[in-house]
């Protein structure tokens, strides 16, 4: 019942309730600010922490042919008040024993690292160019950077098959121009995976880079030039160090999802493109080995947490520098 339709008697009851709630909040020292901060924490708790705990729990079980396809974490034998915890470390041991996983992890890291560097090399000039154009054109250019998001990611990756395949657009164009006789092998290898990742993640590199470069005071570059630095030196001694936060943020935004990337390697990659995302998918859906799949996930998260922590510390440092 809303306050407007409440009878006078209800109104006093409502007021009394409100006073009580306020008193409770005061006793718990909950104020408006705490409430605002609590919201993202609650979100992270429900959608990150709880699933993480569930996955961690499954990773400590063993595969069984039943529903769900893993052993229980807590056992309740008859006549016992407290449950027994049942933990198997065998999944992690398995990850260590089978070189497949190690190779897949390392390969994923390698592909993600190279892709990040490529994104940086391609994205930096684009972001720099956008930041230096007149404000009217800038909005249009930024719109064009995010425009691909209006089409499904999956469709765009599929489109690359049409571009890169044996009788695809590039090969057809090069052959008809007489530049090559034989079609180039560009699909289903590491090359096409790099193309796919760089293409898909480039906006995530450009946007944070643009944000820092746009704020860069042009008079700093003029000062550098005035003090005798040629433009290229001014770029490396002033622009690059000052855009470091953008470089870092963009690299994290590309590197982290690229490590766990599954769609691009499975669509554009070859049979020998080993990436941990693909392994994970196989463990989960082909082998139906949920515990090993969960263990793979937990290790992946740990591998990714390290760069995130580095970023966090960097940002804290940058924040301190500003204060």
């Amino acid at each position, binding site marked *: 019942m809303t306050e407007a339709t409440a009878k006078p008697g209800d109104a006093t009851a409502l007021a009394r309730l409100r006073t009580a709630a306020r008193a409770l909040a005061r006793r718990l020292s909950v104020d408006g600010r705490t409430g605002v901060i609590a919201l993202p924490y609650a979100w992270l708790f429900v959608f990150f922490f709880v699933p993480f705990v569930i996955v961690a729990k499954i990773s400590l079980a063993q595969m069984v042919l039943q529903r769900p396809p893993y052993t229980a974490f807590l056992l309740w034998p008859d006549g016992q008040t407290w449950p027994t915890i049942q933990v198997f470390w065998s999944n992690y041991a398995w990850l260590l024993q089978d070189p497949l996983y190690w190779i897949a992890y390392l390969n994923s890291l390698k592909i993600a690292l190279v892709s990040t560097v490529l994104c940086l090399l391609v994205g930096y000039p684009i972001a720099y160019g956008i930041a230096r154009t007149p404000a009217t054109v800038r909005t249009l250019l930024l719109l064009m950077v995010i425009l691909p998001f209006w089409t499904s990611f999956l469709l765009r990756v599929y489109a690359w098959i049409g571009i890169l395949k044996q009788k695809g657009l590039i090969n057809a164009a090069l052959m008809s121009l007489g530049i090559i006789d034989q079609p180039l092998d560009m699909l289903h290898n590491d090359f096409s995976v790099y193309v796919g990742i760089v293409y898909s993640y480039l906006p995530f590199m450009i946007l944070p880079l643009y944000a820092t470069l746009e704020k860069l*005071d042009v008079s700093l570059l*003029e*000062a550098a*030039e*005035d*003090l005798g630095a*040629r433009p290229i*030196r001014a770029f490396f001694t002033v622009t690059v160090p000052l855009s470091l936060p953008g470089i870092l943020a963009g690299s994290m935004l590309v590197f982290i999802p690229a490590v766990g990337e599954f769609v691009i390697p499975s669509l554009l990659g070859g049979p020998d493109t080993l990436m941990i995302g693909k392994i994970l998918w196989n463990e989960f859906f082909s082998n139906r080995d949920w515990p090993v799949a969960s263990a793979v996930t937990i290790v992946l998260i740990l591998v990714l947490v390290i760069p995130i922590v580095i970023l966090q510390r960097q940002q804290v440092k940058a924040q301190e520098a500003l204060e």
Partner: protein
Amino acid sequence: MDRTPTPSEDRTSRTRTPQVGARGAPVRPRDPAPEPWEDPNAQPYVRIEGVTKRFGEFTAVDNTELSIYQGELFCLLGASGCGKTTLLRMLAGFERPTSGRILIDGQDVTDQAPYARPVNMMFQSYALFPHMSVEQNVAYGLKQDRVGKDEIRRRVHQLLDLVQLDPWAKRKPHQLSGGQRQRVALARALVKRPKLLLLDEPLAALDKKLREQTQFELMNIQDEVGVTFVVVTHDQEEAMTLSTRMAVMDRGRVQQVGTPTEVYEFPRTRFTADFIGSINMFEGTVQEVHDGRVRVAADRVPCGLEVDSAVRVRDGQRVWFSVRPEKLRVRPDDGGELAATNALRGTVRDVAYMGDTSIFRIDCGPGELVEALQPNVFRSRKREIDWDDPVIVEWSTEAGLVLTE
């Protein structure tokens, strides 16, 4: 063209001779040698020859000619948008003139890139590199020239010593106060020993007290390093205190070049007269020119105006008679006879008490407000002249000035 003569005896000279001696040393006697801009044989250090700069349709700097001599502290003074900053940026090399030439020390630098010029600039925003310490900021210019490490350290500390910032060498710019940042910027611009130092509104970001103090520091430093300074400012007081000579600019053109005294006491145009300090102007017609004395009949005030002037005017010419507020004398109206010329009866409309002086706005006829500045000579709680008092305003024949442009 009509030209006001320059009585050299009342011009205070200050090239390489600051009135306040460096580091509180006693004031040195005046340089007996003629000032370079008066010496026909002196070679200008910086020549700006017919320089024009257009941005699309807009002409920022219009066919400007300037000569700046070695050791000068030259001010470009004007309101915002008058082209002074564009002119400075052309000296630094950030803008290329649409036409004309710029020569520094006899060398044509018109098409030289900023990094190749023997010129350094102190930016209005200071443009200190935020990711470098004070020391690194100052060393930056020397590093670009591949100066040896020990030499860099020696010169950086020499400069930081000069601007009294040595204890802050390891700090980052954001850890410094505004005044300290300003001095880092100055040290950074001076460390390469440029032939010419450009300063874009060097004191604009400082508060009043600090600005006054820094003005003198800047003069002392210039005196010590002997570098030619070109300062852009919109603050006429700053230009008056700092400069050996200044150029008053308006809408891309140089209106007048001269020492502060010349520009203040002998403005050539109404714009300059009005821009530098305050001035009372009466429009009128020349009645008589006799023996260097000009008589003007004012249109709107009921008195004859008489002035000793060498400005060439003829009878019947329209002129503007001008007189600065501090050259007027205000006394209570005793009801006595008024002098035939250079005296007005009026009523006080406004009194602004400034402590050392008082400014009176006196109504001397319909719509004719005369401003007068009087030193407060006596200590008194009660004002001798107050609101709505009838007063007489007088001035001598040497006080006024006839403007024709």
